[in-house]
């Protein structure tokens, strides 16, 4: 299986199949990331679209200094904040509570975990997502968030403390 860098290289040369493969690899993660940031499915879909279009258009400018995932989440973050501020359609976006899957379909503990994550400050929520779900090392998370590594560590420290307290059995 081609690695992410190979795919981006092929996308830079206009290879549509490589682009489709990259989409398959990232669409879910970018959508869930945007959902974690914005808590709104419609906006999260918009973020996926804008991110993937930007990946297509910018693949030839990817220099490989960071991981592909860092690059893509960085683009997604930019669009999530732009779209979240309502710049795209000029409207203020409501914070949709309960924009998670139907709780009836989930086991109780997962609902508790999602609620606890949703209750974190946005920067901490984002670190938790990028580390635990996207598997980004903390120096890559620092690049995505545009902050020093120490800030990422401290956000994680506080997030973990709070989650552990809330979810203690």
């Amino acid at each position, binding site marked *: 299986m081609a690695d992410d860098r190979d795919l981006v290289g092929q996308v830079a040369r206009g290879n549509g199949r490589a682009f489709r493969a990259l989409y398959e690899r990232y669409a879910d993660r970018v*959508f869930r990331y945007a959902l974690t940031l914005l808590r709104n499915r419609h906006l999260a879909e918009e973020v996926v*679209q804008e991110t993937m279009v930007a990946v297509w258009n910018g693949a030839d400018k990817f220099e490989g200094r960071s991981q592909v995932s860092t690059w893509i989440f960085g683009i997604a973050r930019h669009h999530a904040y732009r779209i979240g501020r309502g710049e795209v359609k000029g409207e203020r976006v409501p914070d949709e509570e309960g924009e998670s899957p139907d709780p009836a379909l989930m086991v109780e503990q997962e609902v508790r*975990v999602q609620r606890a994550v949703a209750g974190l400050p946005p920067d901490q929520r984002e670190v938790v997502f990028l580390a*635990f779900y996207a598997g980004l090392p903390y120096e890559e998370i620092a690049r995505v968030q545009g902050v020093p590594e120490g800030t990422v560590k401290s956000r994680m420290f506080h997030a973990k403390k709070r989650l552990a307290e809330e979810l203690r059995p």
Partner: protein
Amino acid sequence: MTCDEARERIPFYAARALPKPEGAALLEHVVGCELCQGELVEAMRLGHELRAAFARLPGPPAGTWLSVAARTVGASLLAVGVGAEIAGLTLAVEATKSGFSVTGSLSLLGREVPVLRI
């Protein structure tokens, strides 16, 4: 490594997001420190729960790829094997001046039956 330094790194280790050399240094500390062992166990359990909860979040709607493709790879690649998901049904999308036309056909006993045009 001090306990404070270890505590900072434990969640990233549990997230499998700590660079290998740092992970090794962390474990060296944890082996000899009961308090940090407890922290690590708690972080690993939390990590397991977090991954499960994030994995339950929905993905983008099925039509998202079509919207992306329409703005990128263009019409030629939009015939993306929908047939693989719904046996016998194929979709073709053509660019026209007014936008995109979507046609679908169903292969029945070797005969092509057009089923949709949007």
